[in-house]
């Protein structure tokens, strides 16, 4: 285990060019214990970053350290890493128990321990009953659980999950997200969760890193971003225009939102101003409630702002 607070992954001026294509452009971040989401559209550089951390691709410049080591120079460090790819990677003719045992051995565990850990891991990922069936007959949800299991069977310090909810129905998606949370909160394994689905990341991760076109555009605590997007929604029966005028006189910016009004990023004093404005405009209050925008809306707005 890494000491608490020490960076598990660290990228410094990380750049990767594929001939004329810039996959990563001078990216820098650190990832410590917890669940970190790495967000971005296809081609944003998520997979390239993960491959560099796994030591499979050499950066053009900069460095990528994993548990304090360079994975491309020290293959042994991969014994402490787990990876769940997005694409199919399971042999159809082998049972989950046999496959996880084999993968634990390939990760360096002795055979007797590998068997025990394979059985334990399958129980924790919810596949204990079906573990002796050939995986060719598994549903998509079961296959995703085996893919997660093979990434956890050797008890890594950090696990890379590449689009773990891809192809799952709503129930399967919820179960997978619960497993991801359990991976850190109960198993103590840190997670780097790559996804293009902000809703999944928002509900699962402690921190996020947002890449766009190979560049780092945002990073920080999920709570910080969602606090930024707090709003107050107000709906009145009559005299909405009078209320808007009264609020603007008090320096409160409002926007029309359907039949109601929205106040962005309110602080505590806003509620006093709203009370006074309602009295002044004699507008009967029907509803007033705090709201949070989803991360999706925040980054959509950022994207629109960044567009030429």
């Amino acid at each position, binding site marked *: 285990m890494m000491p608490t607070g020490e960076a598990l992954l660290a990228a410094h001026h990380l750049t990767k060019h594929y001939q004329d294509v810039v996959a990563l452009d001078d990216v820098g971040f650190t990832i410590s214990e917890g669940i970190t989401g790495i967000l971005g559209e296809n081609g944003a550089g998520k997979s390239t970053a993960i491959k560099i951390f796994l030591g499979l691709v050499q950066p053009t410049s900069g460095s990528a350290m994993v548990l304090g080591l360079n994975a491309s120079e020290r293959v042994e460090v*991969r014994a402490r890493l787990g*990876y769940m790819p997005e*694409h199919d990677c399971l042999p159809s003719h082998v049972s989950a128990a046999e496959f996880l045992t084999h*993968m634990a*051995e390939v*990760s*360096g565990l002795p055979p007797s321990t590998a068997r025990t*850990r394979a059985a*334990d891991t399958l129980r924790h990922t919810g596949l204990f009953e079906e573990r002796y069936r050939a995986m060719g007959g598994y549903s998509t949800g079961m296959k995703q659980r085996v893919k997660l299991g093979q990434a956890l069977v*050797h008890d890594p310090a950090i696990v890379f999950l590449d689009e773990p909810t891809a192809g799952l129905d709503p129930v399967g998606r919820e179960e997978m997200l619960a497993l991801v949370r359990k991976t850190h909160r109960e198993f103590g394994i840190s997670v780097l969760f790559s996804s293009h689905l902000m809703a999944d990341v928002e509900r699962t991760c402690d921190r996020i890193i947002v890449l766009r076109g190979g560049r780092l555009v945002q990073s920080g605590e999920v709570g910080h971003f969602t606090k930024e997007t707090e709003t107050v929604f107000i709906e009145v029966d009559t005299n909405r225009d009078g209320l808007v005028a009264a609020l603007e006189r008090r320096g409160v910016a409002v926007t029309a939102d359907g039949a109601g009004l929205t106040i962005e990023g309110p602080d505590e004093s806003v509620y006093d101003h709203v009370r006074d404005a309602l009295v002044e405009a004699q507008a009967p209050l029907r509803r007033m409630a705090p709201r949070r925008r989803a991360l999706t809306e925040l980054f959509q707005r950022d994207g629109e702002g960044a567009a030429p």
Partner: protein
Amino acid sequence: MTAGTVFDIGYQRYTGPREGRARARLAVFKDGVRTALGLGRGARAKVLPWGFIGILVSVGLIMAMIAGAASRIVGAANVEQLNLPSHSDLYGITSIILFVFAAVVAPELLCRDRREGVIHLYLVRPLTGSDYIVARWAAFMVVMVAATWLPQFGLLVGLAMGAPAPVDYLREHWLDIPKFLAAGVAMAAYTTTLALLTASFTTRRAYASVFLVGLFVITTPFTTGLASEIGGTAGQWISMFNLTNIPVHVNDLIFGEVSEITEHAPAGAFSGAVLVSWYLAWTLVPGAVLWWRYRRLAP
């Protein structure tokens, strides 16, 4: 019957030994042997490898039985004059079976991993592409060595048991043992490398198998016919491209006698150094290409 209670003690962190690359290589090697022989798989996976091994062993035993029967008919003293096929001829006789065995079984070790994406999971573990391909090569090499040696041991035991004095037979023919062991390794290295190299170019086992069987089956009559038609040094060189004969020439050099399958091959007129160099070129160059293809492999 007593009632038991299962306690869920939750997830346990692993604090035991991590044996790194050595354990990873061994695991891939063991899995390769099991895959090649269908061990731990259903009956269908066992049919081909064990069927071929059964045929190969049968050839050795049949040769031993023929020698035993001939010894009883013409007498032990006269059986030498019959010049019956023995250890030096066995690889020549079984070479096409060995090639088909390699062509059918070896692709299973590589093609499935790439087709099903398992290779991506290997390469993110403490294992390099070189480690993976060397372990897979070693696994199939072990299986091929077993497949070449087993018929020779069957023949040896059969000949010894058929002789009037088995111990005397073994004392007189003990030198055949290191010879067939060495020739078997040469045969296995050649077939393993060519079969795995072909398998590395496709994700479909059937394509690799058909290509390899076609290569071995077609080049033999084609080169034999063309070499005898053209004759001379050019004919000799054309004969060198008979892929089934390349390791058999090495077998002939090891035993110091020409086996039945190569006695009419024009390539046999080349010196031993040329024949060995040709064999090494057909083993080491494909081996280097195979290693190079996997060395920088990444998901």
